[in-house]
């Protein structure tokens, strides 16, 4: 059974049909790319998957469980985490605290235990610190653990956002244009990071990207979105050579 199964997904904003009869099947452990021209509805699909928008019709099955109608928080608890096109870090928090915020639902103690510094506070904070540092060292960010997130260089901010998303222990990771604004060197490093995340965490990843080098370099399967509809899907190399896809990107 596929990890993520989307059937007949659709949403309209006023008269605009943003996503129509969209379907998607992602096997566990797959590195899946969602591409398409500007305004095709890619980010809208992400927002539908994470509960920011509620679809007009269709179902989204994560591990066989329908998540349509759930709130963003609950969907995250069910197992979808994401990053954003324009980086959204907690800028005034330290790098480590950003990750610890991601661990919020996995190491729990009550507010009163926190205020009165009861034993459970020390126990859970220690566990959180250890887990956060472990995650950060995987991404080579442990040297910057006490730096404010806002002061990190751009490439590391992207990495930190992925680390924070992974801290919520998801089954599926959504990356929204991870290479946006990166130079070729940073993009190359990012590709390695993404592949590394998939292999180390046994993660299933769905990513939106415009950078064709990144897409052809790491994605195993692709879906091309055009005017809210799936134009083409399949193995990456086949899709990228499909005449319909080339037409959608470059015109006739």
């Amino acid at each position, binding site marked *: 059974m596929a990890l993520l199964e989307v059937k007949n997904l659709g949403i309209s904003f006023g008269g605009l049909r943003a996503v129509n009869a969209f379907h998607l099947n992602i096997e566990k452990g797959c590195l899946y790319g969602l591409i398409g021209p500007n305004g095709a509805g890619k980010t809208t699909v992400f927002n539908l998957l994470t509960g920011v928008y509620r679809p007009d019709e269709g179902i989204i099955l994560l591990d066989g469980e329908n998540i349509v109608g759930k709130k963003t928080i609950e969907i995250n608890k069910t197992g979808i985490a994401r990053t*954003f096109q324009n980086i959204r870090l907690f800028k005034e928090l330290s790098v480590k*605290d950003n990750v610890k915020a991601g661990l*919020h639902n996995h190491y729990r103690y009550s507010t009163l235990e926190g205020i009165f510094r009861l034993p459970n506070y020390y126990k859970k904070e220690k566990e959180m610190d250890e887990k956060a540092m472990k995650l950060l060292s995987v991404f080579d960010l442990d040297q910057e653990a006490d730096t404010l997130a806002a002061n990190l260089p751009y490439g590391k901010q992207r990495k930190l956002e992925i680390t924070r998303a992974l801290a919520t222990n998801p089954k599926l990771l959504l990356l929204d244009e991870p290479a946006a604004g990166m130079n070729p060197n940073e993009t190359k490093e990012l590709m390695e990071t993404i592949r590394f995340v998939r292999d180390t965490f046994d993660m299933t990843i769905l990513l939106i990207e415009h950078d064709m080098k990144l897409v052809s370099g790491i994605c195993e399967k692709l879906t091309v979105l055009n005017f809210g509809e799936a134009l083409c899907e399949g193995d990456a190399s086949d899709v990228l050579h499909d005449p319909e896809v080339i037409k959608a990107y470059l015109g006739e």
Partner: protein
Amino acid sequence: MRRMKKINKTTKSNLITYAIVIALFAAVQILTSAGAISSLLQGLLVPLCAYIILAVSLNLTVGILGELSLGHAGFMCVGAFTSAFFSKCTAELIPVAGVRYLFALLIGAAAAGLCGILVGIPALRLKGDYLAIVTLAFGEIIKNVVNILFIGRDSEGFHFSTKDSLSLGLLPDGEVIVNGPQGITGTPKDSTFTVGVILILVTLFIVLNLIHSRSGRAIMAIRDNRIAAESIGINVTKYKLMAFSISAALAGVGGVIYAHNLATLTAQPKNFGYNMSIMILVFVVLGGIGNIRGSILAAIVLTLLPELLRGLSDYRMLIYAVVLIAMMLFNWSPKAIEWRERHSAKFKRKKQKEV
């Protein structure tokens, strides 16, 4: 080893804050016993404790939660009047001042916190400046409601009215407790400077420990980026409401201190109105938004300054205004921030060299 250092850093910073408060308390006690503090200044000490608590609690809303509240005096008013009402009613029932005061504190904080929840539930769901508008209205409404409230007690029980004290229809043995615009007279004067300082320390303990805990991290995450906070499974409404109601409850504690220091407690624009809310906000902004220690110092300086300058009579408010502007520039102008950072960096380097 690194981790140990980090924990020690926040704990150390908190301890310094407590130490500053205790040191100031000791200094005032010494000066008082030496007779160096005028009776006028001594009269300011208890309200000053209330202001510090209000400034610290408002900083929780403005600096940590990142929402603007313009009605903090309203929550103070709720705490002041509910606790004064309670203390006056039970003055004979509970003769031990300490016990009565403890209950008054709990009741004042609970009533203010409840108002915080009631105001927060609709207002905190909205984005933008709605909380500022709603709290502004709340502060004014509370003040006006208290001014038309008449409550009396006689052998038959409590009587309420919103017209005047005569329409309460009290029996000859009755007494008016809340007398509309004349407020509550004869609240036991249980607040002392020592009690005030202890409550400042309690407030600091609650606020600082909250900030450095799982809930505090969630609150600050929401402040920095609400959408990202939601995407990692943080319940935005819950934590916003938590921070706001704790802030309101602590403002209620400030109100309790304030009320139990006055022979007659009335709700006037001066003490519970818009002016007061803005004054507390000025403490927070000048002390540095999100900087708890700064709030304390700003509250002290700006409360004592007009009194210390009294000798200069006509120029008093002029100097006050100049100090306000100077502090604002020093805290927030980009050039000043740059200058401060450069100099603190130099200082740090020197320290490292010595080590």
